[in-house]
């Protein structure tokens, strides 16, 4: 396929539609949110157009700082676990038969069709004392009595990893399928063990893919607000939970908007840092 730089207006035609969609569904709503975040909140009534920094000032406190810190750490942890599990899994998957690969991918896609609500309630049943997996452990003699494995950090992490894992594998799969198998063979004939070849050849070859996947999963996990509520204690609530409370239940749109803007900026900055760090190593 020939690639030429666009020369006249007509060459830009194919991107008009996606561009317009981006403006309508991203730029405009985000601008409205940005504007609202500077509006003045009237505690007894509504909010009025204004240009005040009160909403940002309220956010800049140790309390919201720690909630933001927890949300970021949780999303990073979910991203790392998902990638650590998915890379070996996907490498093994690409070596399986065509039929087995199709079956696995269909199964993974079907997990994607589950909503966050269904995933949350299913895990809360699975981890419960009255109907959960510990009853199974009691039946086979591993445990004395059934007990609840939620609410807690482990439950939140499990639910979020479960939700993000199919995305991770589906992002990694095309890159790993295209990976040249002769790389591994060359490493093996030069005397590397399979494990050594995996870590010294496959992983470096996939570095850019892995970084991109980490970022995708991180952003995906950052928006989660139902699973932390269903599976966690209040100290495991993410910033997204508090934003929802303010917007829907307290009708404090300016403050909710300010928190959301802050979350977007921080995650953009983190993504930027990751990309920059990756780029420098490559140079």
């Amino acid at each position, binding site marked *: 396929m020939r690639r030429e730089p666009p020369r006249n207006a007509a060459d830009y035609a194919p991107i008009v539609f996606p561009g317009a969609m981006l403006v309508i569904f991203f730029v405009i709503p985000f601008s409205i949110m940005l504007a609202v975040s500077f509006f003045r*909140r*009237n*505690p*007894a*009534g*509504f909010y009025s157009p204004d240009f005040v920094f009160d909403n940002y000032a*309220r956010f800049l406190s140790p*309390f919201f700082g720690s*909630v933001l810190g927890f949300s970021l750490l949780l999303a990073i942890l979910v991203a790392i676990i998902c990638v650590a599990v998915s890379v070996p899994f996907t490498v093994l998957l690409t070596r399986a038969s065509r039929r087995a690969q199709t079956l696995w991918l269909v199964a993974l896609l079907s997990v994607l069709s589950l909503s966050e609500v269904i995933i949350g*309630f299913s895990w*809360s049943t699975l981890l*419960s*004392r*009255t*109907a959960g997996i510990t009853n199974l452990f009691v039946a086979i003699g591993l445990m004395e009595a059934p007990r*609840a494995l939620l*609410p807690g950090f482990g439950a939140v992490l499990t639910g979020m990893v479960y939700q993000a894992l199919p995305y991770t594998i589906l992002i990694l799969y095309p890159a790993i399928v295209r990976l040249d198998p002769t790389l591994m063979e060359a490493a093996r004939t030069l005397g590397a063990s399979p494990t050594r070849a995996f870590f010294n050849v496959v992983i470096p070859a996939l570095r850019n893919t892995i970084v991109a996947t980490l970022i995708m999963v991180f952003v995906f996990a950052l928006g989660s607000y139902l699973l932390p*509520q*269903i599976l966690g*204690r*209040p*100290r495991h*609530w993410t910033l997204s939970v*508090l934003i929802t*409370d303010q917007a*829907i*239940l*307290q*009708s*404090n749109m300016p*403050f909710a908007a300010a928190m959301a803007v802050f979350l977007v900026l921080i995650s953009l900055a983190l993504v930027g840092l990751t990309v920059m760090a990756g780029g420098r190593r490559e140079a």
Partner: protein
Amino acid sequence: MTELFNKAMRRRTVLGGAAAMAGTLAMPSILRAQDRSLKVGVYGGYFKDSFDANIFPVFTEETGIAVESIAEPTGEAWLVQLEQAARAGQAPADVSMMAQTPTRRGMTTDLWAPLDPSRISNFDDLLPTFVAEYPDGRLAGVGAVAWYITLVTNTDTYPEAPESWMALWDEANADKLGLLALVSNSFLLEVTAKTHMGGTDALDTEEGQLAAFEKLAEVKPNVRLWYRDEAQFEQALKSGEIPMGQYYHDVTGLAAADGHPVRSTFPKEGGILDSGNWCLSRASVKSDEAHVFIDFMSRPETQGLLSRKVGTAPTLARGVLDLTDEEFSAVSSEIDPIVPRYDLYTEKGDWLNQKWTELIVG
């Protein structure tokens, strides 16, 4: 009320209501077929379904006024829509069922057209809680329905019913409670004040509010779940996973009637009495019909019908009602209720919310 907080359902029913409204406007012949009509906003889901089935047909038959019911979201989204529409001279609903805090927020912009008490025949029988007045005494809203939030338990785990809200503080109940997650819908500050501080008047001052927060903090180790979604707690209560907590008296009664091992108890300090008002938008031109409607809804027969069919607590004094003792105790109690301090949530809502969030998250 199970579906009351179902956000997806709320959005969908609201959109449906708007579409139906547009449809009626496009076909004026249908509107003209009825001599008189009134658009009434009711919480989408359980309330709207019950009102449509049991209450509105009776009203139309008696008065000849057709009711077009509109599903409104709970929370404050409906208030914002009414306010913006009123500024443009429109009324998406003439009369709306409004929770107490939104009723007060609406007063700050004179959103509610003043009602005439002399046109509501049972006005004097209304319990004082169910009359919402502007600071200058004009009538802004009249109680529509009321419901109780009580102390609920799983009967398998607790063979004996608890007697007092003190059970929330009992160390024996560590990690066993399910409580509502927000300061403005759990009303636990009021419960704390009534149980430990002699009454909700203790919340008049900031010192009192802080003392209540401090006392309430002692409950934290007992709480397993702070819930926003009713279904989450109801399921756990039925299975015994979370065997105690605060929940709606009417829904718990329905679950017990279905054979689930749950019970609702009015503690000796009283159940939490929450309620909604009928409010008339200032943009409405149907003031006459609205007064007929509110008069009808405040009659003892209608309140009795609501208690029997919808499961809500009556807004009128016990004496004028035709409910039997059994019917009355199914929806209410003679124990003096804990009435939420709605004034606090209007004046200091953001501060209370911030303190509350720090209390339970921190």
